[in-house]
């Protein structure tokens, strides 16, 4: 059964406008219609100028984050009728600069992410550059970071974080979660290289554990938890003066060609 729902959508083009406006659109929705479907319908039938960012339409790419009825959500993962409201307010994510309408600028967030070296770093440089096999991991080693590896980088957590809204240099929950995800990986020994950034004045210690980030995460990542685990990891590294050195078995795979031309 179709129902008419009113959408109040934030419209703003900072390059030519001084103040934002709210436009009202009416859309017919059914129980399967997501907010993204409705916005695309508005774009196709009523306002082709509406700017939206999206790609996968299935909560994988992390592109369509926006404020829906005042809360950070993925537009493609939010069914309109689930919101149980006659008027749906749609705004760009808070805590990010606006590019246009519902599209926000993540470049600062991604440069913070690069600063924590979000990749496996190993001490055995020779093995890294000329791998002789694959790194084996026990199931419990995998489980120690698996939940935190589910992050799709949608940035909803960083938008909900009260510290990000006051301290623009704070690394943010998404980035700190990424730092923990790799530092907790048994194949990684890169914590010491990440410390200058994550253990700084605007690093993980500025998180006050209000857990607003975890409450909006669409993938159940729980960045508030990974940040507390990161604090514990740093503290024990400082006290025992050595990073947790993990030895991961390297199993050779003769059937795989590992030499490159």
């Amino acid at each position, binding site marked *: 059964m179709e129902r008419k729902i009113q959408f109040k959508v934030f419209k703003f083009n900072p390059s030519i406008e001084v103040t934002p406006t709210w436009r009202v659109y009416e859309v017919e929705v059914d129980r399967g219609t997501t907010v993204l479907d409705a916005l695309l319908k508005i774009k196709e039938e009523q306002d082709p100028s509406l700017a939206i960012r999206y790609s996968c339409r299935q909560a994988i790419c992390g592109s369509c984050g926006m404020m829906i009825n005042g809360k950070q959500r993925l537009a493609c993962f939010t069914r309109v009728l689930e919101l149980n409201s006659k008027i749906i307010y749609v705004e760009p994510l808070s805590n990010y600069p606006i590019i246009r309408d519902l599209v926000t600028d993540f470049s600062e967030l991604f440069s913070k992410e690069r600063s924590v070296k979000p990749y496996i770093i190993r001490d055995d440089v020779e093995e890294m550059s000329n791998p002789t096999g694959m790194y084996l991991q026990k199931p419990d080693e995998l489980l120690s970071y698996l939940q935190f590896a589910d992050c799709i980088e949608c940035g909803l957590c960083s938008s909900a974080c009260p510290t990000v809204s006051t301290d623009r*240099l704070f690394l943010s929950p998404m980035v700190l979660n990424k730092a923990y995800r790799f530092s907790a990986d048994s194949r990684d020994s890169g914590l010491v290289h990440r*410390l200058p950034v994550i253990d700084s*004045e605007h690093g993980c*210690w500025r998180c006050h554990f209000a857990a607003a980030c975890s409450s909006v995460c669409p993938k159940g990542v729980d960045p508030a938890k990974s940040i507390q685990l990161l604090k514990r990891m740093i503290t024990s590294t*400082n006290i025992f003066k050595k990073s947790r050195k993990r030895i991961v078995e390297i199993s050779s795979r003769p059937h795989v060609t590992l030499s490159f031309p």
Partner: protein
Amino acid sequence: MRESTKMLIHYITGFAILITGAIHLIASNLKTLEWIKTTPLYPVSQGIFLATVLYHALNGLRVILVELMPGYRSGKIISYTLLILGVILFVFGSYVLIILFGER
């Protein structure tokens, strides 16, 4: 100093305030335990109380200020200003404690 070290000291001083503050409250309010004030360790505990309260309070203030005024330069200015303030207050507080307990 690394931020983690500053925060670790922050948590430890929080705990120390609880203990030394409790000693002070008990010794000042329970008639049966007033003798604590006459032990030589009492002035030491009050000295620890002074140092830990100052560190904990000023570091808490630093955390609030670096969040409200983010910036690498402002962070340094805030830290050093509070450090100097802390040293001055500690010297003054120690002077008061010495006069207080020195008379006995």
